[in-house]
């Protein structure tokens, strides 16, 4: 078979390693074969491509100094200062628990302390992306595939066939945002500012370099030329980074008029409302998503959580069972099923679910969560000692679990060990200052003399 054809076939079959190999062989024979070169770039890019929309992290403390004007946002216009949802717990980063893991929800208090103390530059580009770039470098024993510094970016910028793959290669594979941007600038100019694709790429680069406002301009300009879902979503993300959820909502609305019922934009809307504390509206949008896409795990899980926290565990149970029927087997899911069973009085099934969750959990952090919830089973059965044991196990697995410390303190207080309780409350407070319970409980303990009338 013709080697290039074979390489192409490999590429289509997503056998990227093989494709790269074949291309390398071709290039050894004919170093200037543009087709092979291009294909190799694309294969290399595809091999490590990650969806950078969903993996984008919104870094805490990434406030852009030059863009912030008012220090105290008006109520309802910022995600940082939401009206407290009373009945729903929050993650350690202060965002509401959403039912699905997504950027910004998985930071743990310990790591965020570490983050703040380290001198590592925090940019919008996630650490993951940097790592990937380096990993790619290591995999080539005989030097890098392309010597980026030697590239004539102006020349490539004008080449409509090569510029796009080269850009993606630079951006994703090399992680070299600066040169990628240079190329994008050249290409945009070569296209006389008429190619929306390049504008989006430019915005990506600006975003990675933390020039968010410039990114916004590029995206808006791209949208004027061509409406595309990805562009909308990137623009939404930019407003999220700027902590302007209302502007983001505007964009969502505009996007939804062009692409009615689009799942990914609807998802953004639902998440936004959730972040703003309007759970009802959020769930409404998630319901619409489920109508469009009956297999959307995020939407089903979020509706489930909504039902759980609005005292309808039986509905939550039904939604989680649906996810289970979709073939998901994870500790988290069984954990949630267990909780739903417990609160909807399906006592005989409760422990079975939790046992499965325990068996499936490998990560100590998830194990800790399961034990934490098991402590609730123990509390529901009135067995304080058992609850303390469960919480102790949870804390050994994850010694930064502030709610567990808080609950442990309360149980110790019940048993009359006030000083232990105090110490634990303090720990909980220090671990997660956004949690108000330890603070309140501490105050209660300290003012006990003033309240000893019970």
């Amino acid at each position, binding site marked *: 078979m013709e080697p290039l054809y074979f390489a192409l076939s490999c590429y289509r079959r997503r056998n990227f390693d093989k494709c790269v190999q074949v291309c390398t062989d071709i290039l050894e024979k004919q170093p200037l074969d543009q087709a092979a070169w291009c294909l190799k770039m694309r294969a290399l890019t595809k091999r490590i491509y990650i969806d950078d929309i969903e993996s984008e992290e919104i870094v805490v403390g990434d406030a852009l100094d030059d863009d912030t004007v008012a220090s105290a946002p008006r109520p309802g216009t910022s995600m940082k200062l939401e009206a407290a949802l009373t009945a729903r717990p929050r993650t350690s980063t202060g965002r509401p628990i959403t039912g699905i893991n997504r950027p910004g929800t998985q930071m743990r208090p310990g790591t965020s302390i570490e983050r703040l103390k380290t001198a590592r530059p925090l940019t919008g580009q996630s650490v993951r992306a940097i790592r990937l770039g380096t990993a790619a470098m290591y995999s080539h024993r005989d030097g890098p595939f392309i010597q980026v510094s030697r590239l004539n970016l102006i020349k490539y910028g004008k080449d409509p066939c090569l510029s796009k793959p080269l850009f993606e290669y630079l951006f994703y594979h090399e992680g070299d945002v600066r040169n990628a941007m240079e190329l994008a600038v050249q290409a945009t100019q070569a296209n006389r500012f008429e190619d929306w694709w390049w504008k989006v790429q430019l915005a990506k680069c600006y975003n990675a370099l933390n020039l968010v406002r410039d990114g916004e301009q590029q995206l808006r300009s791209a949208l004027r030329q061509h409406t595309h879902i990805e562009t909308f979503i990137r623009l939404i993300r930019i407003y999220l980074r700027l902590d302007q959820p209302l502007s983001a909502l505007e964009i969502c609305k505009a996007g939804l008029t062009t692409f009615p019922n689009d799942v990914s934009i609807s998802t953004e809307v639902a998440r936004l409302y959730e972040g703003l504390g309007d759970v009802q509206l959020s769930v409404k949008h998630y319901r619409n998503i489920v109508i469009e896409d009956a297999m959307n795990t995020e939407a089903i899980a979020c509706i489930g959580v909504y039902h759980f926290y609005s005292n309808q565990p039986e509905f939550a149970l039904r939604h989680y069972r649906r996810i289970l029927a979709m073939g998901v087997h994870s500790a988290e899911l069984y954990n949630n099923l267990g909780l739903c069973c417990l609160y909807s009085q399906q006592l005989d099934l409760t422990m079975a679910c939790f046992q499965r969750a325990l068996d499936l959990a490998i990560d100590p952090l998830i194990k800790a969560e399961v034990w934490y919830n098991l402590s609730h089973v123990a*509390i529901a059965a009135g067995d304080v000692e058992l609850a303390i044991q469960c919480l102790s196990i949870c804390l050994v697995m994850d010694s930064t679990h502030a709610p567990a410390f808080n609950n442990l303190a309360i149980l110790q207080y019940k048993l009359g060990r006030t000083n232990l309780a105090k110490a634990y409350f303090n720990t909980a407070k220090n671990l997660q200052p956004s949690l108000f319970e330890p603070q*309140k409980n501490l105050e209660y303990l300290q003012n006990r003399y003033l309240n000893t009338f019970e």
Partner: protein
Amino acid sequence: MGTAIFEPSPLEQLNWLIHLQYVRGEVTKCKELIRRQIKKSNGKHEYAFFKQGVMLREDDKIQEALESFQMCHRLNCDNADNIKEVAKCLFLLRKYRIALEAYLEAERISTKPDWEIYQNIGQCWVSLGENAKAKEYTKKAVQLGKQECSYALLIKILISEGDLQAAITVSNAALEACPDSTVMLTESGLLHLKVGQIQPAFQCLSSAVALNPSCSAALLGIGCITQAHEEYEVALSKYKIAVQINPDSIALWNNIGMCFFAKQKYIAAISCLKRALWISPLNWKVLLNLGLVHLSTNQPASAFNFLCAAVNLRPDAALPFLALGCALFELKDPENSLKAFQQAELFSKNDYGIMLNSTLALLTIGQHEQALIALEKFKKASENDGQLDKQVIDFSHKLENKLKKLMGKNELEELSESLLENSEVTNTKQNNDGEEDNVDINKNSENVNVRNLQSDEV
């Protein structure tokens, strides 16, 4: 203006401005002004330090505030206000003993008796756990200032001493001094309620609600009174308003649940009680009520779970044990049920329900002799009671008949039915719970972390 040389203006020239900016909440400007004034005066500006202290304290920087006030005191040791503020900071730092000494010093210095000092001394003594002295000083403060907060403190002290009658007297006096205070009206009403003076309680609470239609504590009290009179619709309407203002009140949700229970709307009752339990998972009263409701809906397994929790959390009350016994009986475990009843008997004095129920349990496991003895005991206890509930009498007669029959053969079906009725008799007592507003520790109920880790890559 005649001379060319201006007399230097006194330091106090701009004190009014410092004060003005402070009260208007222009904190940054005020701090700036204070900073400048202190600099200008070479750190001798008493008032600037004073206000700086006040502002620092409001920012919760109590230690720094304390230093600021100590500076004031150094500049002018004759000003009792400075010592008062120092003492207040010490109090906030929980150094009650030193705070007390400071207040006593302020009392010594001040030229006129000051109710505020007395009140604070009282507060210090309370914090140090010396109620007698606290009472003495608070009484002084009350006489001198007739301030609502002094009355409130005195009432608190009296309640903690268990002297409800005196507390009521004080609250009545307080109402004369400040007739429009909804807090005091509510407090007074709830006090009356506690000692069982329904009429004045109702009056106080009604006027509190009239003044402030959204006073949830007063609404709760009124609801409680009407609920006790079995006017469930009225009670519910009160609770409905209250619960919108205070959606996290355990007592409210508990009482609403019990109202629904009384109206035999069991599902609504369960919903409300579960809400209460969600807020306070360790509240045995809610657990007990939930258990009772589940008993009525024929869900003994759930009921057992709730009651078991209630018993574990409150192992010295009769009612949970009685209910637990009933649940066990339903679960066809009469031996353990009997144990529960016997435990209940230990904590109660002549509760007919418990006696009859244990008789029934004895009967079921076939210990007829014992059953007979238990029945005799009941008869003896109830002999002199003229106001015996008709249901109880019926049930005891039934039991007696059965027992006589059963001395020969074993037959049980009708009985278990009547047992349930009996457990409902006990429920009505339960309605009175929750009348005290539960100012309980904030049981961290919002702690169920539901996590789900499906990565949502497209």
